[in-house]
């Protein structure tokens, strides 16, 4: 069973936590996420031009790059994480250019070697799958696809072609960290997506509080929280880990119990 399959087989909604690699003390923050109860880790690969990100994650990208974070550093962080945490699925999330610059085969092989389970590439839609998808699938790394409020039913099968791991529903048409979507629209979308795929469906963008997360967790298989962690790291810098852990726990408690409360 893959790490994703094992995680989503549990009878509870998964907390999927995003932080940017190289922003703050990444190893300590990753451990804090796991200790606090995160089920899946998304590690952001910093990019100079994070077009889909709001101010918080943009700033995290720039802080990381200003410290000199390289792709080699990120794979080293990933491999070290895998050595410490054998079970927790690890996803690299980022933009096409850093992922493809040395060739998709190179990137896929490095992911496999470092124990990375999945990739989210913001700017490679299914239409350009050839850029990265075949290499990842050959290497046994899942390509996690995004669906959005603008993904109409006609396009959904194409968007799901070749997808793995879980389906990431971006609940707002927008950038990270700003608006939040109405619960009703999320519920409608998750139901529609679950009818179209057997993949677990995770919901993200704009989720900041345990209360919001718990609401979404009633219907989704996973809830993604990103900018709220980035804000904590921005505030506390290299000493953020205890704060990250405490916030993770508050989210995990809210999310993990949500389905039983609803039932």
């Amino acid at each position, binding site marked *: 069973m893959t790490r994703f399959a094992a995680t989503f087989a549990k009878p509870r909604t998964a907390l999927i936590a995003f932080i940017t690699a190289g922003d703050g003390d990444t190893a300590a923050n990753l451990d804090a996420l796991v200790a606090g109860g995160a089920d899946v880790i998304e590690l952001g690969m910093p990019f100079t031009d994070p077009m*889909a990100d709001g101010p918080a994650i943009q700033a995290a990208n720039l802080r990381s790059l200003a410290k000199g974070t390289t792709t080699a550093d990120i794979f080293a962080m990933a491999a070290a994480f895998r050595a410490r945490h054998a079970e927790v699925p690890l996803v690299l999330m980022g933009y096409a250019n850093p992922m493809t*610059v*040395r060739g998709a085969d190179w990137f896929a092989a490095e992911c496999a070697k470092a124990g990375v389970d999945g990739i989210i590439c913001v700017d490679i839609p299914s239409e350009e799958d050839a850029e990265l998808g075949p290499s990842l699938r050959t290497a046994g790394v899942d390509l996690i696809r995004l669906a959005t409020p603008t993904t109409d039913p006609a*396009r959904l099968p194409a968007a799901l072609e070749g997808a793995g791991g879980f389906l990431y529903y971006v609940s707002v048409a927008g950038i990270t960290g700003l608006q939040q979507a109405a619960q009703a629209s999320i519920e409608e979308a998750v139901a529609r997506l679950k009818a179209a795929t057997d993949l677990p469906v995770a919901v993200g963008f704009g989720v900041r509080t345990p209360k919001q997360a718990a609401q979404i967790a009633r219907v989704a298989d996973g809830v993604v929280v990103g900018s709220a962690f980035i804000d904590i790291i921005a505030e506390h810098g290299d000493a953020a880990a205890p704060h990250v852990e405490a916030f993770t726990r508050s989210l995990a408690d809210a999310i993990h119990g949500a389905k039983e409360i609803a039932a």
Partner: protein
Amino acid sequence: MTASQTLPNSLRTGPDDRGHFGQFGGRYVAETLMPLILDLEREYRRAQADPAFKAEFDDLLKNYVGRPSPLWLARRLTDHLGGGKIYLKREDLNHTGAHKINNCIGQILLAKRMGKQKIIAETGAGQHGVATATVAALFGLPCTIFMGAVDVARQQPNVFRMKLLGAEVVAVESGAKTLKDAMNEALRHWVANVHDTFYIIGTVAGPHPYPELVRDFQSVIGDEAKAQILEAEGRLPDMLIAPVGGGSNAIGLFHPFLDDAGVEIVGVEAAGEGLDGKHAASLAGGRPGILHGNKTYLLQDEDGQITEAHSISAGLDYPGIGPEHSWLHDIGRVRYEPVTDAEALASFQKLTQLEGIIPALESAHAIAAAERIAPTLGKDKIIIVNCSGRGDKDIFTVAEALGVEL
């Protein structure tokens, strides 16, 4: 030879139906934008098939923009250089002072067809911003222009023009605060407002179908130039020269001539302080990569991080280039040459003094290349240089570079 013939093995048939020119181009955008881009393509195909669309476009170009723009034989410049005969395609005489308006007219007509109520655009020099604000005023649509904070500072007259035209100008503070960052911010805004907003991209870059449709709207430059040179000289030119930022004025001039094997074609990249210093020459100094929706040559480091471009000319200060140029470069149909800030500054002054034409700094790069090449050609040779815009917007930058206080 007819104005626009397409041969079976033509170089003018691209992109393919997925928006690729060879390995370049494509649609590398967030899923949120993908449905919109597919919509835009469908609407563009319908517009292409609709004679009323072309009629309205042609009418606006003629009566609003003032086309055709003249093809001016630059006699004094030609005599001074003592070689090939230099013609200037006078895009500087268009309404708003550059070629940018051609594309804006086409795109706002598409926006109208699609029922979009708001217009956004990115701008570097401010020429595209002014052209966009202009068509938005003409069509009565609210308009927001994203412009890097550095460019806002160095292109004040254009910022004020945009505001007079009723546009909101957003000074972008992220990254290097120039054109690339303005485009990032425009894309961010667009993603959040796709339902009612049309993004008028200012050059032949971005996701498919933008590189294609911008090229098509700008090809009026080359179509006119071809007819004009046939009328003036009875034959095709030996060479075309145009400056390349994203590459819209250049592809507009080049495209109708791509299948004319006897026409040598030269694109001019901004070499800034020189190719071993800070520059904006993505073909000479970059490698293929993915940014802003397309695959193309980019200035980047070994990890694929985009490096900052530099040019004295804000309109050329971009670390990428349109994908069709990357392809034309790789297949060798177009030769791309670098021109430095210093060379462009010298040519800016030379053209002003010899012809009474103050060119945009962007256009001055092409003039500089012509100065380099013309003396090596016989007097019977004909060169068409794209004077893509007028230089009024640049007088502050030039004054500063020359150490003159205004």
